């Protein structure tokens, strides 16, 4: 049976960036971008990927949305797409992206390929969650999510391998910043959820090696290390992320993937807490913070875990921060240091330097934080 590939193009993604607008969310901004002479980026990115996969186009049916949301590009690349839904040509909105994703979910396509930025990833996430494999082709301004491939060539290869059943999938962060705040030079990024993306080990290892543990095994190893070394006189603040929440799962505890949970003596004491609650909980008690690297930019504080605020960090102390991450996650940073951006310059300064990152039951790495 022929495979089904879904294609959703956000035609305006990235237009703001070319004219210095830091994003293109909202009609006013789009209008402003157009007036400033912004040109669409998404069509070219889409064409590049479609060209990469055209040599095996007989093996799948391409489902897409009308006109500039994929149909135009597909036809330009000699595909014969099955066009779904309807749009108001030239005036697409995020609602169109969400609708398109919903239809792809109904059709149970094998992969939703979307072209856009963090905003587009959020729309896809809202409609699809982690129920289908998805893959982002970057054309946006903001790229905090971990769901995008680096190049069209790599995307082409991943798509081919996924349709042939040759790759597994992993969960990757959907993150977005508040564009309004960003335009005023304030950064405030939030972790919205996780998309299921194809995962090719070959990016970090030869296909012949076969000895590197899978992401799941690595997370379990790290989690058991944390659990086995838990001290009864400390409460543990478990930050968001799939790696940190593996600890909760291993303990059989309810948890908040996107939020901060607190445990003591391996039992849950608070779920999905905010800064105020955290401050209350650590009042007069010893505590440790367990965080992981969030998103593709290597942040450990200040992106997606703002609940663990400068005040909380200061009270708990640098020596009680435990950073955990799989080696693959660290490798994917390509040598780029970890980052902190808590909003408090003094706290950021305190966190900078070299830190120990737990990568397994009996192993850790020393990595730079800037």
């Amino acid at each position, binding site marked *: 049976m022929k495979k089904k590939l879904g294609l959703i193009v956000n035609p305006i993604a990235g237009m703001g960036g070319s004219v210095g607008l830091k994003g293109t969310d909202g009609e006013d901004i789009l209008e402003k971008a157009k007036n400033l002479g912004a040109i669409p980026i998404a069509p070219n990115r889409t064409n590049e990927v479609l060209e*990469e996969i055209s040599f095996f186009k007989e093996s799948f049916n391409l489902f897409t949305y009308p006109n500039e949301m994929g149909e135009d590009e597909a036809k330009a690349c000699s595909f014969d797409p099955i066009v779904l839904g309807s749009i108001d040509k030239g005036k697409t909105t995020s609602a169109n992206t969400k609708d398109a994703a919903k239809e792809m979910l109904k059709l149970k396509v094998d992969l939703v390929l979307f072209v856009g930025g963090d905003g587009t990833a959020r729309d896809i996430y809202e409609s699809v969650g982690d129920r289908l494999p998805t893959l982002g082709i970057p054309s946006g301004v903001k790229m905090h999510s971990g769901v995008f491939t680096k*190049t069209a*060539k*790599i995307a*082409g*290869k991943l798509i081919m391998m996924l349709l*042939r*059943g*040759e790759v597994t999938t992993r969960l990757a962060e959907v993150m977005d910043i508040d564009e309004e705040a960003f335009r005023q030079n304030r950064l405030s990024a939030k972790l919205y959820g996780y998309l299921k993306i194809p995962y090719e*080990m*070959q*990016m*970090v*290892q*030869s*296909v*012949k*090696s*076969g*000895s*590197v543990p899978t992401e799941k095994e690595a997370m379990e190893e790290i989690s058991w290390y944390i659990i086995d070394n838990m001290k009864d006189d400390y409460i543990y603040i478990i930050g968001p992320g799939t790696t940190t929440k593996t600890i909760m799962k291993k303990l059989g505890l309810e948890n908040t993937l996107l939020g901060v949970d607190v445990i003591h003596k391996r039992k849950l004491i608070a779920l999905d807490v905010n800064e105020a609650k955290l401050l209350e909980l650590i009042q007069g008690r010893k505590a440790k913070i367990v965080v992981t690297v969030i998103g593709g930019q290597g942040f450990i504080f200040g992106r997606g875990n703002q609940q663990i605020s400068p005040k909380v960090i200061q009270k708990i102390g640098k020596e009680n921060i435990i950073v955990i991450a799989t*080696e*693959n996650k*660290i*490798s994917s940073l*390509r*040598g*780029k*240091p970890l980052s902190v951006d808590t909003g408090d310059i003094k706290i950021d300064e305190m966190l900078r*330097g*070299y*830190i*120990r990152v737990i*990568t397994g039951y*009996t*192993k*850790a*790495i*020393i*990595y*730079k934080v800037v």
Partner: protein
Amino acid sequence: MREAIELKEYHAHAWNEPIIMEMGHKGERGFIIPKLEGEIEKATDDATHYIPKKILRKKMPKLPELSQPHVLRHYLRLSQQTLGMALNIDIGMGTCTMKYSPIINEELIKLPQLTDIHPYQDEITVQGILEIMYEFATIIKEISGMDEFTFQPGGGAHGIYTNASIIRKYHEVNRELGKRNEIITTLFSHPADAACPATAGFKIITLYPDPETGLPDIEALKSAVSNRTAGLMITNPEDTGIFNHMIDEFVAVIHEAGGLCSYDQANSNALFGIARAKEAGFDVCHFNIHKAFSSPHGCMGPACGVVGVKRELAEFLPIPVIIFDGSKYHLDYDRPNSIGKVRQFLGNVETIVRAYAWVLGMGAEGLMKVSETSVINTNYLIKKMLTIPGVIMAYPKQKIRLDQVRFSLEKLKEDTGVGTDDVSRRIVDFGVQEYFTSHHPWVVPEPFLPEPCETYSKNDIDYWVAVIRHICKEAYENPVLVKTAPHNQSISKINEKHLNDPKKWAMTWRAYIRKTRGKMKNNRNS
């Protein structure tokens, strides 16, 4: 202007040879054991009576039944399908030091004085081999500055494990082992510098390289050391060919914290007569005799990872240690604090005999020339390689490399979709051994790691570069050709999707039968 080099036409033997278990016919024999003559038969007992019942087979093993010529033909065919080191320009296997090993030294290890002795002979009857080993130890002491050596470890990683065991014993004797349980290493040290101490029970702390220099930062090291530090196990030059010029300061930081320092000298080919473990302050070190000292290797042996220690650690060496009393050589077992044996007897002595002959042939100046030539070769290779579109060098600010160099085909992959695994598969179509990408994980994307030792000529290097240049050109012009390689080899590209699938692996014939049940014919004709 570049000289045009014409690549040789090549095709490997392709016999499509079955596995030997699939060959032969029932009743076919290579050799028929004659029956015992009557008198002897009467005087002897059934041999099975001497075998303990619990290990006696109940059923005959299912062995293939073949005649002698069929067996010979089969293995000759397999050998023809092997691209051996001596058949090609084997520059691509970085960190492996694939140098030419003088064939005349093979004559030495075939001498009856070596082949006809037994490890259980009394030491007084094997003075010759003990003398060779003692003398070679004297040489390697001079090369490294260390005080005592053992030859027992049967390979590089085994030598590193021995080092980890010595560090463990040292802390145990000092009653600090319970506390000191962390070994520090670096990402571009050999993975054995992490794996071996982990096997010995230590926790491993890895320093990541600075993205600019490719080297670990001393500040990172300082943040890693504590009263839990048992030691540092490090390779230098690292597997990027970059020499850590602050190595003595690294060693000082570890010593200050109460740890020991172990020097992995698998990459020593660039350092003979130039830098020694002793001057850098190391406490223990190992060399791969089968690499830098010209004993042939590959196919997993026979190898020898000699381990040297400073005088203060000599009590921990594996027993026995060869000693000399001024007239005779002895095996010294009287070392109560020894880590014990790490291998039977004295180790792979033939490796030492070859290395001894090689070092005597080279002389002290010759050894230094080995290193100088290997460094010149590497830097000549770099100069040539960087003219190839699509090839970049990792950490380009480090312009000088020693024994090897790590390149990246990231640009080629981005431009053409052809990655390092593809190029490595294509290179064999030109009669050149596939290359080593690098250890994992790939911190340098799409990596490869050539090591042009001193035994390769300028023409050899030029030819190897020409092959890579040709393949990179193919990648831009006809990427499918490279991605579907090899085309001129004994086997074609295999389906890689099964490589990491345990359901498809078969480590034994029995497992193969089980996993392919009903899908194969047994007893195929040869």
